[in-house]
């Protein structure tokens, strides 16, 4: 018998579904490993506390901040700013992106200006915004919103453009036009792309938040960053980075949840 005659069970080429708990463990493994290395390096003296504070002292800083009640205040201040600014920016970017993506007239009216706007780094607008709004809360919210608009617009536009034109044509054939066409067919089909737009937009506006909070603030994580710089406190510097990282994880979790809710037809479907 030659090898060509041997029958084998076909190898499974699909993707296996991973159990939730395993998936969570795997997700956590790399950050935890990094933490262990950090702790080991600090404890053995390999890592100079001047270069990077030890995990222990960062926890100490966290406790100090929590006991004085400032941690809760700062987090609340940052979260509120971010929420208001991002919401404004997302809504503006979404509306403009849908208008430009779904209608030729909208594209002609909106897209050229938005492409120019997109080319301007939002940090270049800081002096202008400061002179308009002063250093108060309005300035911060506007800066965050301004940073969120461009990515939200760009990816929404692409997402709406990317909707299967054959499906849209079929919907037109069934009498759908204008707002109803957008609402009932284009937006639902574009939903995966819109979520990606939101994801990118949120990570960009996190930068907006940091920038906004470095200027003329007395609370917020960004304020903590400037303080730690001023007093050269390595433990607080690291704490701030970790707080931002935590914010990133929270945003990611929220969007994963949103994807789960908003894209119900995705789960458990093979590619066809």
């Amino acid at each position, binding site marked *: 018998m030659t090898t060509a005659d041997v029958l084998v069970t076909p190898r499974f080429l699909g993707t296996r579904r991973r159990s939730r708990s395993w998936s969570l463990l795997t997700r956590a493994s790399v950050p935890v490993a990094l933490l262990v290395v950090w702790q080991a390096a600090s404890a053995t003296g390999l890592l100079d506390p001047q270069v990077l504070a030890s995990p222990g002292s960062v926890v100490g800083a966290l406790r100090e901040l929590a006991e004085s009640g400032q941690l809760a205040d700062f987090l609340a201040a940052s979260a509120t700013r971010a929420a208001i600014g991002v919401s404004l920016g997302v809504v503006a970017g979404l509306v403009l992106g849908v208008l430009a993506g779904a209608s030729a007239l909208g594209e002609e009216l909106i897209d050229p200006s938005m492409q120019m706007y997109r080319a301007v780094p939002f940090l270049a607008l800081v002096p202008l915004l400061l002179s308009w709004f002063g250093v108060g809360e309005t300035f911060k919210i506007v800066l965050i919103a301004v940073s969120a608009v461009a990515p939200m617009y760009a990816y929404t536009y692409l997402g709406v453009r990317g909707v299967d034109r054959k499906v849209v044509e079929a919907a037109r*054939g069934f009498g759908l036009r204008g707002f109803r066409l957008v609402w009932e067919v284009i937006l639902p089909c574009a939903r995966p792309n819109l979520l990606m737009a939101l994801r990118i937009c949120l990570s960009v506006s996190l930068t907006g938040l940091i920038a906004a909070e470095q200027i003329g603030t007395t609370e917020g994580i960004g304020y903590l960053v400037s303080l730690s710089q001023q007093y050269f406190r390595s433990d607080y510097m690291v704490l701030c980075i970790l707080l931002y990282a935590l914010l990133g994880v929270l945003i990611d979790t929220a969007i994963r949840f949103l994807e789960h809710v908003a894209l*119900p037809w995705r789960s458990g*479907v093979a590619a066809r």
Partner: protein
Amino acid sequence: MTVTLATATGGSTTSPAPAVRIRGLRKVYDGKAVLDGIDLDVAPGQLVALLGPSGTGKTTLLRLLAGFERPDAGELGVPLARTTVYQEPRLVPAHRVLRNVMLGQRGTAANRAAALASLAEVGLADKARSWPATLSGGEAQRVALARALVREPRLLLLDEPFAALDALTRLKMHDLVERLRRRHDPAIVMVTHDVDEALRLADRVVMLRDGHVSVDLLVDLPHPRAITDPHLLAHRRRLLAELGVDTPEATP
């Protein structure tokens, strides 16, 4: 039983007010007339199969009738209630089956009931809550058919609706079309590449060539038809010859 070979203007079928009226229809792409003066009437309830070599403008004609293209010259008359089924089902992936059938309609109880009834007609009542991505090719195409029929069209446009299906499913779809025709009785223009499909289902076979109607054949045989019927075989040979395929004479 009569077998008529009508003239290329379709003049023999104009007795009642037609469901489709095409006069001098012209469509030009890049300086080339894809359709160059088409005259055609389709009677109410008639099923016209549209044949022709690839690229002769069958889809273009259908899109003109559906309103997706504008004619460069000529007149078109179609009923207000008309729907299309394409080669692909074109379901909205983000809506469940029932909502796809109700696309563009209000979510009233009456509309829901009609959509469910329509799904039941194509044998998919139990798939109303499924996502389109979980349907088989034949099921998805039946949903597309239900979605077209729920609007009670007076004209149903089918562009190679069964081309992507396997032979067995296609035969079942033919049965389904014959059943649905008896109930709804819309005029139907169906593009197909399958001569046998055309002869099995159609009351009339129209062939396009070089922008004109080159064959207009009335197939006045009772349904259901056996493909071994000698009249059908004669038609089949003629149509295939017209498409450039020679078939050997059957020896009795």
